[in-house]
């Protein structure tokens, strides 16, 4: 063949599979049944070929180094016996046909689950790299052997040029790879997704893949995604974990979300998880658990900033800066006395505009709109609508602050009743 050794050629897996492998004496060794890639790199190189010998059924592995020429036929240099490890995969290796072709993948750029119709490979300087995943209609037609026919038909009938639909490998997270659970954090591209998108994807997967994907996430990503997941599925995902791992994830969630989730779990399981949690976080969540989920007490979170009236704007800002990561509410600071009686509220905007030495008591708004623990969601929604707050504090009978309801938590219980 008249192909220059350093030419770049694109190939499709569907065209490679079934190709003949011959040795220097033009003797047929077998047919290509699968390719192995090393998934460590951005564009994974092919590291081996699986082939089924003309006689026999079990596939043998051939190291890529033995390939002399990769064209219409694959020419290999003579094999030693030790060149044939028994078809086992090494750490980080992936079989293209077995784990990718016809299987589902996550496109982390478009946040979608797609099915792989073909794989696009680049041949360059005697190496072969996996570059794209083909998820388009044209790829499907190629597999069926109707690529040309489909091109012509679309051109003639719709005057439409049928284009390939490729996804670059760096945006692809395989789902069928057997070692999903052993992925290193950096390799797991699912954490690139927005938590809400990741939650959607988890919901769309089947029940086994769901918990597998969930368990492959790092604790922080898992917690963020879990907050956005449908409550029924949340319960399933957590039920499949051991209490230690579950408690790690739940600690990362906001207390109000964590309480809702624990409230939905079977009692034994919830108690097991609470025992494993850090004491402080567990106390917070337990306090929230006693309230009805759709009333003020059940909607509120306990992660909000409170300060005494004599604190200054500078101190307040300092406190916010330190705690912001763990707070569910940062737009309002609540001013209370030593017994946590609610005296007033200061917004972040007021705080930023105030001179650093100003006392909170001088800048706070004492006319705080608050609700009681037993207030119903509809009444709370009316208050949000009327005043346009981002959060509303919850107080007990003695005006002591118990928690804060954020607009987001309210929206979660009200949303199902909107629209449809």
């Amino acid at each position, binding site marked *: 063949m008249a192909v220059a050794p350093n030419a770049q050629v694109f190939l499709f897996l569907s065209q490679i599979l079934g190709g003949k492998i011959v040795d220097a004496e033009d003797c047929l060794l077998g047919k290509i049944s699968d390719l192995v890639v090393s998934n460590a790199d951005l564009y994974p190189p092919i590291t081996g070929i699986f082939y089924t010998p003309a006689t026999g059924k079990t596939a043998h592995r051939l190291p890529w180094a033995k390939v002399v020429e990769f064209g219409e036929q694959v020419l290999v240099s003579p094999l030693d016996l030790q060149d044939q490890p028994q078809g086992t995969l090494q750490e980080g290796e992936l079989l293209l046909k077995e784990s990718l*072709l*016809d*299987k*589902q993948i996550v496109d982390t750029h478009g946040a*979608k*689950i*797609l*099915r*792989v*119709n073909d794989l696009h490979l680049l041949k360059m300087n005697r190496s072969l790299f996996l570059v794209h995943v083909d*998820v388009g209609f044209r790829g*499907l037609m190629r*597999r*069926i*052997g109707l690529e040309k026919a489909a091109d012509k038909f679309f051109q003639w009938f719709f005057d439409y040029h049928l284009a390939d639909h490729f996804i670059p490998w760096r945006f692809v997270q395989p789902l*069928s790879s*057997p070692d999903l*659970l052993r992925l290193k954090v950096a390799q797991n591209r699912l954490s690139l997704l927005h938590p809400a998108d990741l939650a959607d994807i988890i919901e*769309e997967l*089947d*029940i*086994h*893949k769901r*918990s*597998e994907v969930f368990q492959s996430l790092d604790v922080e990503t898992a917690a963020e995604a879990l907050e956005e997941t449908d409550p*029924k599925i949340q319960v*399933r995902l957590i039920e*499949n*974990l*051991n209490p230690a791992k579950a408690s790690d994830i739940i600690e990362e969630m906001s207390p109000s979300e964590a309480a809702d989730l624990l409230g939905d779990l079977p009692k034994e399981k919830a108690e097991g998880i609470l025992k494993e949690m850090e004491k402080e976080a567990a106390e917070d969540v337990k306090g929230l658990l006693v309230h009805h989920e759709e009333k003020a007490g059940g909607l509120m979170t306990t992660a909000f900033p409170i300060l005494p009236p004599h604190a200054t704007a500078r101190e307040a800002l300092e406190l916010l800066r330190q705690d912001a990561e763990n707070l569910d509410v940062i737009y309002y600071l609540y001013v209370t006395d030593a017994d946590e009686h609610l005296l007033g509220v200061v917004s972040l905007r007021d705080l930023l505009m105030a001179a650093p030495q100003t006392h909170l008591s001088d800048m706070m708004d004492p006319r705080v709109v608050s609700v009681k623990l037993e207030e119903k969601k509809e009444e709370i929604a009316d208050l949000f609508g009327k005043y346009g707050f981002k959060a509303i504090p919850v107080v007990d009978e003695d005006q002591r602050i118990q928690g804060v309801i954020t607009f987001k938590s309210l929206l979660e219980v009200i949303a199902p009743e909107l629209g*449809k």
Partner: protein
Amino acid sequence: MSEILSGKTQPAPAERITRKGFWKTLGIFFALIGPGIITSNVDNDAGGITTYSLAGSEYGLTLLWTLLPITFALIIIQEMCARMGVVSGKGLSDLIRERFGAKATFYLMIALFLTNLGNTISEFAGVAASLEIFGVSKYLSVPLSAFFVWWLVVKGSYKSVEKAFLVACLFYISYIISGFLAGPDWHQIRTAFFTPTLRFEPGFLTMAVGVVGTTIAPWMQFYLQSSVVDKGLKTEDYQYARADVIFGSVIVNVVAFFIVMLCAVTIFQAGIKIETAKDAALALAPLAGKYCTWLFSFGLLNASLFAASILPLSTAYTICEAFGWESSLDRKFAEAPQFYGLYSLMILLGAGVILFPNVPLIPIMFYSQVINGALLPFILIFMLILVNDRKIMGSHTNGWTLNLISLVTIVVLIFLSGAMIWTALV
């Protein structure tokens, strides 16, 4: 991989049951049922009712006994589907695509689309026929029902749709009531039911094959498995899915029993010749009273509407699942164009064909039955391979007894489907 998952599962099923009381078990059963019962009832659609009425009115009680082996075969096949759904968590077209590749899946899906389209046409024909008995023109009833079906699924949520479907299942009682209205001789029926008769004449055999073919259809396997997956049943809850399937399969044949029996003791004994379900309904009036006709037509309307809602939906789901296209009622049209496109196309074509004057309905149904019969063996063979694949099913593959039973069932069904195609084309 499966070891890791199963290592964290709940206590063994037996333990769970003893811990829960009887009432709690019953409660769980009712929470988890649905897929099997809905699938089976959709099976008694316009085509089914027509075939059963013809069987009863042409051959009297002689074909009644076939319902026993049919129930058995239905349970065997549906049980495998439900098990695959629970264990793999994937739909049947998903499994077929992953195991058998793009090419086989592509042609299978084209055949499935065509046969389901044919079935959808016959559902709308059923709507038209049943409402004509009440004096409603098909030019009014068909567009309205098509719109109703489309609206129910596109605008309703899955939960409300499933409830509507379960209510539709209840309306099949109308056939049981009309069966009693005819005042049959139960002693004679019991004898016929337990005495297998086989007559080696082409008409009789074709009808027997038709009864089997209408009861075990390709689309059901896809629909059942997907809805089992949608329910998100765990492997430990599999026993409820099985109970659901068995319950559904028995119910569907009880309804079929009453239709065959009703037509046998009235139309067959009066010696009237009928060609459609509408003829059957009209012939009932002088023989069993006008209420019987009304109930019979109402049952037909319910069955046709019910199946017309499910068939296009199931087809769109199945095909999108196989090709990895977005398929969810929660998506907007622009987000899932293939899904809504296929769904709307099925309804549009299905209802549209009926509105053409002089449309050759009988050949259309006929050929859709032929494709049905040609498709079924492939699907059953694929299913048998899949259900024995350890990579997919783990320890839940068929045992050898079950494999033998299903193999015999499948061979018989393949033989019957072949016979049907042969009689149809020769």
